[in-house]
């Protein structure tokens, strides 16, 4: 019964999150065919390899492009749903980790930071490092959710839209963490294999 809980749109939000994570899973499926090649910026030093590994190598840039676009979509969507900032501040406060002032600052800047990362992933600037930053952000999110879980808080993670308290039976920490691990994997792909088409980096002669 919804009347017990503070900000009651949590059910819809979890649905939204599933939608977004579904998208991520799709992309990952396509990633499974990618080659297990060593991380390298120096594409010219590669050996030709077997026909199979050549084909996989040819697919890798497209897989990275997909991971980039998917992550950009996920981050952009999550930034959008966190606004207006009053909602975002509420989500951060629910974790009870920061003082009110710090919570407010994070609440205001986190959606903006996510949006900036989304923009950079989309245009492919400093791809490897933006991928690493995105991965770090996911690790921070996972740690935050795990800490809320461990402390027995009953909150919505606020990953997509408003967080805040929810009824005891409505938490979804396991799903939230699993989803963020999926996003972490996408970020890992971008970081380890930054070479992809349609990237600004190429204009600067990087990851060609």
């Amino acid at each position: 019964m919804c009347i017990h809980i503070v900000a009651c749109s949590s059910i819809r939000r979890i649905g939204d999150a599933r939608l977004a994570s579904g998208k991520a899973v799709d992309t990952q499926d396509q990633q499974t065919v990618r080659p297990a090649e060593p991380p390298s910026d120096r594409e010219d030093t590669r050996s030709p390899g077997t026909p199979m590994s050549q084909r996989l190598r040819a697919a890798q840039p497209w897989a990275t492009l997909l991971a980039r676009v998917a992550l950009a979509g996920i981050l952009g969507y999550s930034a959008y749903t966190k606004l207006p900032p009053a909602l975002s501040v509420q989500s951060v406060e629910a974790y009870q980790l920061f003082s009110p002032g710090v919570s407010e600052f994070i609440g205001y800047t986190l959606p903006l930071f996510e949006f900036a990362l989304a923009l950079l992933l989309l245009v492919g600037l400093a791809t490897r490092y933006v991928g690493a930053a995105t991965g770090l952000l996911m690790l921070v999110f996972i740690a935050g959710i795990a800490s809320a879980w461990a402390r027995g808080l009953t909150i919505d993670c606020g990953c997509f839209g408003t967080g805040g308290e929810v009824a005891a039976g409505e938490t979804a920490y396991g799903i939230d963490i699993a989803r963020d691990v999926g996003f972490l994997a996408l970020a890992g792909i971008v970081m380890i294999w930054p070479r992809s088409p349609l990237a600004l980096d190429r204009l600067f002669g990087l990851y060609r």
Partner: protein
Amino acid sequence: MGKAARQASRERLRQERLKEKQRAKRNRILGVVGAALVVVLLVVGGGYLYLTSQRESEQQFAEQYAALPPQEVQQDGSVVLAEEGAEAPVVEVYADFQCPACQEFEKASGPTLQKLAADGRAIVHYRPVSIFAQQPAPISSNSLRSAAAARAAADYGKFVQYHDILFENQPTEGTVGFAADDLKQWGEDAGIDAPAFADRIDAESAAVDQFTGEYSQQLMSAAQDEFSQQKLQGMSLGELMEWGDENGVDRSFLEDTYVKEILDATAAVNERYSGGESEFSGTPSVYVNGAKLGNEAFSGSGIENAVENAEPGQVDTEPLASDDAASGASPENEESPDAKE
């Protein structure tokens, strides 16, 4: 030059060229990383400046109580803030003074609402509820005590001021707050100096204690004997209390209290918006002419847009007779008159 020397110099050249290449590459990476950092700074810094300046401009309308239009208490204990004869969209605000999301809502959108009412661009209908009444104390008692106190302040035409003070002083969930002495002091701060206000606070506090203590225990244990756990969870507090009336759980101590008004108002909104897109499903819930707002409610500009795009509406409650508005007297209508649609 010997062959070995030539080879060594060639090797050296090759090494240097390689180094040069690596250096160039490092510079390119530094370049793009720098560019990316600039983008992040611009987006985050620029966005932060924009959002905070927007907030500040909205906060300018805060606490401009002298400019407020009349606050009219309604028969169900809600309060309408509107210019005399205003023809404007009706913004209903359902909030619980103990709910943190409501506090965020008030911080973000409260001043804009007051300004819209002062400008005659909206009829703001404050409808306090207690979504926490069924929970254990202190969350339930905080919620009920504050709502009853705000209702008492409304008798003196100070609801909006008092409402703002309550949200500023909202206790952390799970801690005891909104103590009777504080509630009295805040009344003085809001400009209420009648002793009857303090008496009313004491009476309401006593009713709250009895409700969240003895009464709730009796009601729950009687209901647990009668209903399955599953059935119990599906029942609203209003339904439970009605069942209690017929089964010997006495709540006559609530007669003529504002605590009862709040409980009735909470039951009434659950009926009024009981399904579909506008279902009442928690607080804060904000409706413009009966249509529920989403996330846009959490910014002054979002509320303003929603109001601009709405037609004039009608308040669905009747004002309390004006002659007992300032007497602190009990409401005449015990039936929640707003239950009619």
